[in-house]
């Protein structure tokens, strides 16, 4: 049986980012966990695809009221949050986790709804 293509989660003009839709994660805890469990190659591919679209993404989302976003724009915003998170491994650390942070953990206990 042939599986149907997954329904698109991002606005049509961001179809090029659909392969990275698994980075559309609402909560920091999920984004950080995905970062730690991803390889550098996976994050580099995501970063290389999403970083050049960041300006466009902000322009797209800002066509709406930030507190009344349609679902696809909300997903795009979540993807941008993930891009911010992986910018550290890609641009700075060259590894998924913070160097010298060992077993230290820091959990988000309150984060904005939007």
């Amino acid at each position, binding site marked *: 049986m042939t599986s149907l293509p997954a329904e698109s989660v991002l606005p049509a003009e961001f179809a090029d980012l659909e392969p990275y839709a698994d980075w559309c994660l609402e909560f920091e805890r999920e984004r950080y966990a995905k970062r730690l469990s991803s390889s550098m190659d996976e994050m580099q591919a995501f970063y290389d695809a999403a970083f050049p679209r960041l300006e466009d993404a902000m322009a797209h989302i800002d066509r709406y009221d930030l507190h009344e976003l349609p679902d696809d724009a909300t997903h795009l915003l979540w993807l941008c949050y993930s891009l911010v998170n992986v910018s550290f491994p890609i641009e700075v650390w060259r590894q998924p986790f913070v160097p010298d942070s060992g077993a*230290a953990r*820091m959990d988000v*206990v309150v984060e904005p709804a939007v």
Partner: protein
Amino acid sequence: MPHFAKPAEGSWTEHHPELGTAPVSYEDSISPEYFERERSAIFARSWLNVGRIEQLPRLGSYFTREIEAARTSVIIVRAADGVRAFHNICRHRGNKLVWQDYPGEETAGTCRQFTCKYHGWRYALEGDLTFVQQEGEFFDLDKADYGLAPVRVDTWEGFIFVNLDTTDDTPLRDYLGELGKGLEGYPFGEMTQIYKYRAEVGSNWKLFIDAFTEFYHAPVLHARQAVSEESAKLQGYGYEALAYELDGPHGMVSSWGGMSPPKDLNMVKPIERVLHSGLFGPWEAPIDIELPPGVNPARAKQWGTDSFLFFPNFMILIWKPNWYLTYHYWPTAYNKHIFEGTLYFVPPRTARDRLAQELAAVTFKEYALQDGNTLEATQVMLESRAVTQFPLGDQEILLRQLHHTTHEWVDGYEKAH
């Protein structure tokens, strides 16, 4: 030759002769016995910040705070007559009154009254015992004698403080002194977009405060967070504060820095260039603020951030692009504490605002993880007692003050009791 003027004595430290300039011991941070003394001498008798007024938006809003260092849990609630605080204990058999699922975890919500899970005794938001299950079974029980045990509570600039000492009557504003007064009028209440982080840190509470009241470490420990040319330049400069102010048990350091916007965009990471944000926060301030006199006291052009420590365990950091940060350090053992870092921004209007704040928050966590782990390494080695005396530089004056104040409070309390 210093870049910024120091007091006439030649150094910030010598301006406060009571602090001395000799090497110090951190025995106060590695001794289980000393922590037991701090519990009664400090945490059971000082004003402790437990939250913000925005956490109690309406009648019946409440939250609990575990204050392990004073071996208690406190309920803070908005009652009909204002904010009230009580020990979180039922007067009947001593059950913890307010908790959800896990008795040791903090909780928050809204209610019309507090009902004990154990035998259903009920208390009004003002603390009065209003209902006793099968009241007729008790002997001469006058409900008026069994209200919740009150805790002193007061607010300052929207910050809620409690004081567990029933014998002291120092008003909160007097306690916060001139440093507190100098912050009055800052629009804390407009910054309601919140990120709060929590970490269990394997070090004494004072050692983490030490890490956050000096920036001498910043160009070295965090070197890799800047692009390499920038990092080399920062290490070459080293670090000098614009000003230090010490006021009773409290202290502050005023710092240069920040990039809003940076002179050379190549100094910052690619994502910072797009989002116009970084460790010092979004480059563009969201609102205009006339800074109160206590902020940037040197009125320096290069000003970037001020860090205030209100003894014992509460810090406020005010950043040039109009946002602020609080730190709390809640000791749980001589070598452990819970660290909370909370970022407060003006609510974003656009995706661009929102993502600039997200980058500031993510950057904060990356730095704090480095700081926290370094502290565990310090704790372990101090406990080896292989070395027992350590020098402190002039840019570490607030560390000298914190340990000095701690000793003053512990010795003073023990002399009086």
